[in-house]
């Protein structure tokens, strides 16, 4: 503390304190800019990111020869042909027939029926060597994310299980899961597995979801999906293993829907593109195209989706099958849970990443920017000397509680009765509150205090989200930033009012996220974003909707309220207890 004190004394002596206080708004903006430029300019630079590596030695990807080749070729095609015939059957009949196939090769099967989300067939191939306390999941939802019949994926899962069942190397049980869809139904199965199912195979270590629609024999490249719900990511080792194996088989690996032509390049622009689309996908995980691996989040299961792209190409469907085979061989080697490698990372390409230590400063700077904006609202005006327990602080705290209540009610009411246009219209109207409310004026110190509380609360929300869901924290922070630029006005001109209103409108949680999705996410066009947000909460347990409503909206309401034209008052002796 002595060093700090010396520093403090020095700063006081140099007369920097008033200057620092005066330039707090600039510092706040600087922090926000620093945050964005750290992420976009700095991290993708050569030398700032790292090459991936397999951290857990036991994994040894592709060290064992993969045998899912010619001998399995006809079996796989046979299953696929039969599945094609079952395509138009009712899911229950289809599951019953497939269950009989799986029982033929010794798997124990069961059908879990969820009244709301359809039924899920799963079969367990019990290990001959292990103690049966651990399991690996191979999942193939009947319909893929794009709504296609997952013929190839299901046939692969069934034939891989048949092939695995003949092999004595397994030390973990193998569970094949065929769910109705990759979203709610798979999630419902995972939940049931951990709560009520009778036929279980021990704790699930890893899950691989197969996405291979159609009956075509060949495909061009593979895409790996990994962004989990609520910011959860699989251990980097699993992704590295999947990437390593795929590339070992000769395939190109794509992340976040990167097109084929870009896969062989490694440029600054592409790294930046992957990074940003990774952040976008992580923010919208569970809300837009849920590919299946998201369903496993929250139970310490590391999961990825393997998706085949293209109808023509040098790789046949058994090559695709060799990827899960080799992943299972690797995971089978593990004696402990995945723990060696990173759980917090951002990928810049399949083979390069930045770890939490490198990217966290971006989000911390953003959170600090709001904290500084809060300090600015307290210090940079004539009411900075008000005592801590002044009536203004107490009422501001009360107003904050009211705003929190309103936000909570909005969140719940909207979940029951989704009327997106009404919500948007109401918030646009609220942004222009300074034009509509003319007679009533807010007392100036209140205006400042409301903003101080709003920014402080938002800063704390960002800080607590930082580690849990970095992408969401960053997205929310950047989108909400214009909020901190609004100014308290007295006898405002039209221009000032317009400026405030536009800033408010662009930082409203609903308007901002809606606009962003219109611009960058074709899947969430129109008002489907809001329905997806609610569905993500009710079906998958993804709490992005509540972050928007309870983390962001209360602050916004307070700032919007404080943008009403204010009247200055004298507060020299006004104290309250």
């Amino acid at each position, binding site marked *: 503390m*002595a060093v700090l004190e010396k520093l403090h004394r020095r700063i006081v002596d140099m007369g920097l304190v008033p200057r620092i206080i005066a330039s707090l708004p600039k510092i706040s903006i600087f922090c926000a800019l620093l945050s964005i430029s750290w992420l976009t300019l700095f991290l993708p630079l050569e030398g700032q990111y790292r090459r991936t590596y397999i951290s857990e030695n036991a994994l040894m990807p592709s060290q064992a020869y993969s045998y899912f080749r010619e001998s399995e070729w006809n079996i796989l095609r046979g299953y696929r042909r039969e599945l094609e015939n079952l395509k138009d059957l009712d899911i229950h009949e289809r599951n019953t027939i497939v269950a009989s196939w799986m029982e033929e090769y010794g798997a124990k099967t069961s059908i879990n029926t969820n009244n709301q989300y359809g039924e899920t067939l799963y079969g367990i191939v019990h290990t001959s060597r292990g103690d049966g306390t651990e399991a690996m999941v191979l999942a193939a939802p009947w319909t893929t994310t794009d709504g296609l019949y997952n013929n190839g994926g299901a046939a692969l899962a069934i034939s891989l299980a048949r092939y695995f069942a003949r092999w004595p190397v397994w030390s973990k049980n193998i569970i094949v899961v065929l769910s109705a869809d990759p979203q709610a139904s798979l999630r419902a199965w995972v939940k049931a597995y951990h709560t009520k199912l009778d036929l279980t195979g021990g704790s699930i270590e890893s899950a691989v979801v197969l996405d291979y629609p159609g009956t075509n024999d060949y495909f061009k490249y593979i895409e790996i999906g990994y962004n989990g719900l609520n910011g959860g990511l699989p251990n980097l080792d699993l992704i590295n293993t999947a990437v390593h194996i795929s590339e070992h088989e000769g395939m190109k690996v794509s992340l976040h829907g990167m097109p084929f032509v870009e896969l062989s390049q490694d440029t600054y622009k592409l790294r930046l593109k992957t990074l940003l689309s990774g952040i976008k996908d992580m923010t919208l995980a569970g809300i837009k195209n849920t590919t299946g691996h998201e369903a496993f989040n929250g139970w*310490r299961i590391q999961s990825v989706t393997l998706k085949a792209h293209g109808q023509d190409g040098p790789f046949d469907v058994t090559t695709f099958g060799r990827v899960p085979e080799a992943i299972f061989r690797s995971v089978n080697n593990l004696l402990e849970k995945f723990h060696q490698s990173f759980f*917090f990372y951002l990928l810049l390409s399949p083979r390069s990443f930045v770890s939490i230590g490198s990217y966290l400063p971006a989000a911390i700077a953003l959170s600090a920017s709001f904290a500084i904006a809060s300090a600015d609202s307290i210090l940079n005006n004539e009411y900075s000397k008000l005592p801590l327990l002044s009536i203004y602080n107490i009422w501001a705290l009360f107003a904050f509680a009211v705003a929190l209540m309103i936000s909570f009610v909005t969140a719940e009411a909207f979940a029951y009765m989704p009327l997106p246009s009404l919500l948007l219209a109401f918030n646009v109207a609220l942004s222009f509150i300074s034009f509509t409310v003319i007679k009533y004026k807010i007392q100036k110190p209140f205006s400042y205090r409301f903003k101080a509380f709003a920014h402080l609360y938002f800063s704390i929300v960002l*800080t*607590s989200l930082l*580690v*849990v869901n970095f992408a969401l924290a960053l997205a929310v922070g950047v989108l909400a930033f214009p909020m901190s630029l609004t100014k308290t006005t007295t006898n405002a001109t039209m221009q000032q009012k317009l400026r405030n209103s536009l800033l408010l409108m662009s930082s409203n949680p609903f308007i901002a996220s809606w606009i962003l999705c219109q611009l960058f996410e074709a899947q969430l066009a129109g008002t489907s974003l809001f329905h997806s947000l609610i569905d993500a909460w009710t079906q998958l347990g993804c709490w992005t909707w509540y972050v928007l409503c309870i983390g962001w909206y209360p602050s916004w309401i307070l700032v919007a309220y404080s943008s009403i034209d204010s009247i200055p008052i004298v507060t020299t002796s006004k104290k309250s*207890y």
Partner: protein
Amino acid sequence: MNSREKQVIFGCLTTRLLVSLLFPSLQQQLDKAVEFSTPVTSFRSLQEGVFLLQNDLPVYNGGVVHHLPLLVALMSVVTKDSLISLLYAGIDAVIAYQLMLMSKQFSAQLKMPNWIPGALYAANPLVLLSCVSRSTVTFTNLAISTALLAALQGNVFLASVSIAVAGYLSFYASFLAIPMLFILKRGRLQSVITIIISLSLYLLASYKINNENWNFLRSTYGVVVTFSRLIPNLGLWWYFFIEMFEFFIPFFKAVFNIFAISFITPFSIRFYKQPFYAFILCLGWVTLTKPYPTLGDGGFFLSFVPFFQPLFVYLRYSIISILLFIHAIVLAPIFYHLWIDLGSGNSNFFYAISLVYALALASVVVDLCWSMLRIEYDNGNPKLDVQLTQL
């Protein structure tokens, strides 16, 4: 009792009862939360003890119950759930009232109404949640505040008996008898004798209740002193002993124990002119260094900070302390969740946050200590333009 005080007490009672009533599952959730519950303060294990006692089973053989026999016996009388809620809420209301009585003793120095400390205690979310979680620190806190109030009012007997209860319930609280003796203006010897006699009586009664068996000592004080339930909590101890080689452990347990009590006598002696403040600093020190702390302890200590109101002008990093507290309290459950539930974090995450919490407590204690020294230097009249620094 004026109307404001009545309002505060009423508010204190109703908030606690309302929260218990509106969120019936909150008690169990909080009782499982690492911030509010430790093996030695958890209500679950107390109930286990009550069950064993009522069924005439040996209470301390299972290694689950770490509560004192008298407390278990007391709680076996109060079995109805609503009565237990009322008991806890009532205890908190009594503490709030005692805080207001204490501030009356200092009304000359404190430039604020007497009811403020009570209101802050009642509104303190840490205390509120700790009370709702039915943590047994509430009982210890009641004993400590009773002892403090009685000592301030010069009631030697009540002060001694209460501090003995506090020491009986929570081992490290017994060392608070030292600063308490400094508060008493007369009858110190008498007080020491009373403390010793009453403590012995409690222990003997416990011995009788526990089927004439001394084994409760090992599972209560023994567990606390030797830290044998190695479970993560907000304190400084657990992480240290997880990583240590077996043969170093006894030595460092002794060191940690000495550390926990080492500053109590120095504080009491240095600030003997302000014994009440010395007592609070000691309380802060014990809260910081005890092996099984909860947020309930922290909240109780913070409730005494308003009494330092004349010294607030001297505080040097109050904003840093507040920010540290906010972040520690917000992030602790999140990091614990990342570690225990999701498995993506590890123990370092939670330990880092418990360090932040310790830093927050320490910065409050250090800052208060500094402002005490400073006002002493200024002879009671703040001269803020004089700049002082530590050597």
